[in-house]
């Protein structure tokens, strides 16, 4: 299905622009008309992280006239393995500022708009309304559903991409012409069920594989060429080096873009997606200790059994002395329970406290009433107890 161009062409290209974009201009499908549409286009990239980095670099180079960058975060050293728009000297700098500097260096003709804020239900409609198209490079379900809902309510197309370890997915959601994100995934997974990249990791170059698909689709939608990824989901497996696409149908029952919509304005996305399950929250209430408290217990010689519920690779990066590794999955399938000591106080920990809270709920249900978990996980141990350890 080909679609009409999203953006009207600018009046003209300057001599400088003709020189810069000549390799586009001599492609018959793009040509002067296509490049003038890019010049007139206003694209917002949500997130200047893994996907946002390659997306912004190529959108800038392609000559998109106005590029918005929204990110509230600062550059961390652990970002540099994949967030190629930032460099070593940018560590500690606001990501939106750092990304804007790279964009200007690549193409000074781009008008860069910096949004140094977190995207919220209070500002999303306002910010989105200034753009023709949105590129979604966020890293959590709550923001993804908010981006989708705002885009549908404003009638704007958005190019979606998502990554995990070696797997990537991409699509174009445009409710006027096809399905939305809610048609594809009606509900987010319960918290703790699907690990984030911070918990599960991501192959750095996967960002480029998926981010470049997003830019490819953005350019096609803006200029009206080719077959956009509307109504299709592209699935990429980096290990097998296979791309496959499947159909995404518009769900007539979709609560947002279906026949009888029940969502007609933005909702509470934190509540919709949760940050931690109710069971885990309940289990953790009154059963959360600090890393320092754990250290004191160990120093006193208390009879504690410390369990690290992360994965083997994470354990190898850094671990709390004395902790036994039993990954969360072994609690979920029940196999870990019978081997646990009944006569010792069990202390659970993970990277930051979310997974250990989920396991704590399982243990409480299994009768380990005095079990506790370490709030903030091994990261808080590193901060509070032993800053010489590596963080990740």
């Amino acid at each position, binding site marked *: 299905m080909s679609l009409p161009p999203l953006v009207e062409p600018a009046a003209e290209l300057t001599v400088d622009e003709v020189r810069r974009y000549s390799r586009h201009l001599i492609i018959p499908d793009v040509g002067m008309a296509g490049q003038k549409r890019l010049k007139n286009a206003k694209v917002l990239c949500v997130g200047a992280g893994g996907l946002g980095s390659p997306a912004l670099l190529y959108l800038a180079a392609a000559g998109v006239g106005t590029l918005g960058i929204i990110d509230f975060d600062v550059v961390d050293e652990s970002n540099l393995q994949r967030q190629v728009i930032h460099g070593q000297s940018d560590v500690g700098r606001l990501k939106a500022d750092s990304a804007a500097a790279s964009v200007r260096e690549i193409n000074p003709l781009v008008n860069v708009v910096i949004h140094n804020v977190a995207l919220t239900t209070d500002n999303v409609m306002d910010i989105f309304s200034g753009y023709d198209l949105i590129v*979604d490079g966020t890293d959590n*379900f709550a923001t993804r559903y908010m981006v989708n809902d705002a885009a549908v309510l404003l009638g704007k197309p958005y190019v979606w991409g998502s990554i995990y370890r070696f797997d990537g*997915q991409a699509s174009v959601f445009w409710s006027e012409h096809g399905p939305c994100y809610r048609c594809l995934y009606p509900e987010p*997974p319960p918290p703790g069920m*699907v690990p984030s990249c911070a918990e599960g990791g*991501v192959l750095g170059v996967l960002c480029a594989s998926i981010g470049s698909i997003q830019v490819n689709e953005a350019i096609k939608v803006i200029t009206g060429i080719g077959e956009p990824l509307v109504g299709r989901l592209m699935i990429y497996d980096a*290990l097998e080096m296979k791309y496959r*696409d*499947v159909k995404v149908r518009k769900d007539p029952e979709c609560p947002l873009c279906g026949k009888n919509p029940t969502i007609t304005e933005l909702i509470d996305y934190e509540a919709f997606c949760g940050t931690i399950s109710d069971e885990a929250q309940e289990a953790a209430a009154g059963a959360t200790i600090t890393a320092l408290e754990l250290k004191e217990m160990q120093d006193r010689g208390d009879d504690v059994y410390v369990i690290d519920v992360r994965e083997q690779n994470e354990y190898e990066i850094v671990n709390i002395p004395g902790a036994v590794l039993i990954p969360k999955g072994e609690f979920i*399938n029940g196999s870990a329970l019978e081997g646990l000591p009944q006569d010792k106080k069990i202390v659970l920990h993970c990277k930051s406290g979310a997974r250990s809270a989920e396991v704590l709920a399982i243990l409480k249900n299994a009768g380990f009433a005095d079990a506790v978990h370490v709030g903030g996980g091994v990261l808080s141990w590193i901060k509070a107890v032993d800053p010489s350890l590596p963080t990740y």
Partner: protein
Amino acid sequence: MSVSVRIPTILRTYTGGVAEVTGEGGTLREVLQKLDADYPGIGARILDETGKIRRFVNVYVGEEDVRFVEGLDTATPDGVQISVIPAVAGG
């Protein structure tokens, strides 16, 4: 009926890291039952407590999302590829 089932990265802990496994069954329901028998625990990641496909997991028979066909009763002809695609949010 022999079919192939694509396992996403996130569920490969159940299949010993294998990306594609052989399945058996005339309908998706039968294929998933056999899959869970072969790889205990994987079924619960795809189906909820009431036996329905979880809302954040899509299962495709060929290139069709079974939610828009016959759901778990979707026929799985010999040789068809079944893909399990869970929502991921990384970016």
